[in-house]
């Protein structure tokens, strides 16, 4: 087992300590200072720790760092820093798709992955894509509204999604 692995986090090449029991979530928090992926359930049941790995949303609490060699990881911090995704962040804020905010980065990251693969999602697409994310504050009804508006705005801005 190598002691470190190389991977790409938010577009930047990184080396991470690959202790065999270290989860990607803990590596992001303790080694990278990235705390946007949140720990809620600690067992793959809530989606709060979602990051995107090679284009697919994954649960960082349930993935070991040593499985991430050569992978491209996107976290909420990377999504927020990319102007292309500003409409999604804006729509979440406008529609108050959050209460305490703890689960919100996980929802937003999952939503980003949805729009990546389906630029014009239906309401049902949104609900199904977010079915694995738990919000203990019960904000569910507001997410699809935000995502649909973001997708509309991104499409009408021209090239936001497809360009």
């Amino acid at each position: 087992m190598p002691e470190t692995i190389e991977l790409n986090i938010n577009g930047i090449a990184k080396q991470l300590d690959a202790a065999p029991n270290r989860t990607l979530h803990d590596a992001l928090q303790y080694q990278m200072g990235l705390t946007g992926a949140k720990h809620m359930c600690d067992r793959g049941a809530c989606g709060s720790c979602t990051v995107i790995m090679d284009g697919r949303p994954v649960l960082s609490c349930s993935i070991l760092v040593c499985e991430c060699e050569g992978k491209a990881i996107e976290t909420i911090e990377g999504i927020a820093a990319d102007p292309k995704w500003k409409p999604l962040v804006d729509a979440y804020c406008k529609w108050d798709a959050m209460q305490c905010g703890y689960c919100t980065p996980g929802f937003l990251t999952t939503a980003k992955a949805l729009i990546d693969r389906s630029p014009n999602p239906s309401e049902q697409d949104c609900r199904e894509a977010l079915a694995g994310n738990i919000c203990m504050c019960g904000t569910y009804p507001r997410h699809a509204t935000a995502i649909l508006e973001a997708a509309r705005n991104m499409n009408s801005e021209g090239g936001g999604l497809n360009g």
Partner: protein
Amino acid sequence: MADIGANGDRENFKVVGGQGNPPGVVSYAMATGLAKYGVDYVLPNMLHAKFLHSPYANAKVAGINDAKARALSGVVDILTWEDEDIRDLVPRCFDFLSDRPWLDNIADRSGAEVAAIVVAEDEETCEEALRLLEIEWEMLPHVTDLREGNKLGAPVVRPGEDAKPTFWNYLSAEGQPPKRGNTYTVVDIRGDVCEAFGEAENLIEYDLRLPPFATRSPNPLASVAWWEKHPYTGEEPNLYIEGSVRWRDALSLTYKMPMEKIYMEGLFMGGKYCDWSLRRCQEVTPLLAKRYGRPVRCADRREHMYDFLMNERFIQMKVAFTKDGLITAIDDYSLCDKGGRGSAPFGHVGDLSQGPYKTTKCKSVRQKMEVVDSNRGVMWLSGQHCPFNWDTITTGIYIIAEQLGKDPIDIARLNLHGPTSPDDTNPVPSFDKCVEAGKKLMDWNWHPSGAKQLEDGRMHGACFRYQMTPRHSMKERHSKLEYRDGVVHMPSRGPIIGTYAVEANAMVVAEELGIPYEDVSIDFDAVAAHCIYGGGSDGTVGPAWAMKECVQILKELLKEAAIDYAENPGKPNSSFHNVGQHFPTPGPFRGCGPEELEVADGRVFLKSEPSKGILISEVTHKNIVATHSAWPPPGVWVTGNMGEILDLMNTEYCEVAVDAETGEVEILRFGIAADVGKILRRTSLESQIDQAVFFSQGCQQFEDMFYDPKTGVLLNTNMADYKVPGMLDVPIVEKSILETRAGNGVYGANGMSHCITNTNMLIIAIHNAAGVWVEPPATPDKVLKALGKA
């Protein structure tokens, strides 16, 4: 708006309550992961601490051999309950927590912190060391079944303890009968109940179970603390702590430190709805950090966070009523969970004078509670059925309606006393308005039980419920506004429990000054005086009332400053000293008196010639500070007349479809027609309604706490086994929000809080569909069983 005076006099609103939602100041931080909660903080050279958590329902630690654990590489120390500093700690958040020692060798519920704390270089080492502790457990009898625990001869789980349940100034221990076994008995009687029952025309009896459900903290509770010398004086160290949001005052008492020496950066609290207390992991880190001279982090794991948001209760009701449906006598007996040591009296005796009965014309009410010491868990602060158990009356009204062949709405209307007092016989205008809106919203068409089948063959059921939108505001408020460099600043210490309360206060500032909401700078600062204590409603309408008063003071100061600046305009006195300072052009106010000026629409201008004026941002180059301290008009908690004044009401409707073949229940929709007086931040209000429905659905459809009968251990302490509603579960929630402006808060608002949270509407609607009673949560197997099919 009888009692809020000028605070309610605005007619036109540009910012408050609008359809468009001004972006929340903290929304961006939450959405993008910038927001840090206690568990997120990582400091260089940080140690980790972990409590020993009990695997037993009731047990005593007779001894600990820590030799193996201490020998583990990376272990720094192991402290026990006998440590002198630990023994000195006293729970300080709420007084009812102090009947539980801060840490001792008895754990009275599974998962409780007990006997030992391990300090190590990392979390894994802490966990490993905890496994290596050789603990001599002495098992004690437990009670997790309330009905068993209440029986004569049941094992007594807290022998020698007999602190009778009290509830602030509403209920004293005086006069209560002595404890019997595990059980305290409290009786509250109004009127001549025996006589009223003796004259009863009709009588119904029914049972209810209030389901317990777990707190809603999504963020694992945690703190990180460290000590640093004062950066200027080098004197005594200051305490820095993250993750113990809101509780600088409690920490100050616990650690005998002046408040001003306690700092925290993060104000994001997570979703602790009406669960405000500090857990042990949020209190211990200062002690450890001081002892080891390094930052220390202590975090709870998810399995240790299954405390009660509401505890279990079994209720037996007897209600007398006339042939028209007027309730004439109520006998409410309940067997309640007192919980573990330190539990709050909310959820049992706290309900005695707060419940629904005082909203009715019925003057003969007996409430008897048997409150049982148990090993089921702790309720840290309050329940989510605010204000208190309303489901008894909702169920009674439904059963009366069924018996008389009437609509429950008509039974409710008949029974409500008038708006001003229990002797008022007039209709309640807010109730009637809500009902009118609700009927329209839901195409309300009441039918008796079992009378309606949907096209797909499922049975249709419905339920109606009313509640009061209670007056909030329970403390003195301190507000401050600073005008600096042309910008109005609102310093606030939050806490940030959601995107609503602090923002709603800033919206009031913007509204009163006539400036865009975005132009009010909310300066989050843990030491600021402005605080939204109480969270949602209490934190919104009370402080917002006070903040509106503070704006009036600022307006007067702005007028004086504008005149002063016009007469003595500022100018740079040296290019060096005034770098970056803006000296606005003076307004046309020379020789004016403040009474000749007006502040509105973002400007200061002459009343006589409104076109002559300047922007608020151009008033002066000087700083202005406005402060205000006062009690806003008090809420029902303070006045003690819960249910006696019915100024603002809300109504709730639930429709279900029951599949008699599979036992599945689908909530077709919830409808809320609510009078909140005045909407402050619309999306937040809507979101809170969604949340209350989410709580209601959870405890009636999915959530339950399962105890192993043999050991008393709580079994489902993870998010896979304890299911809360998810995205595909939640129903449509239709809303119709009314603004009659009759409340006591700013602009006549009352707090909506979680008063629409219920534990029985779904259960009633199932009965209305299928004619059977199902104990919550109504899982398909229970529904089938009730239908005689399983």
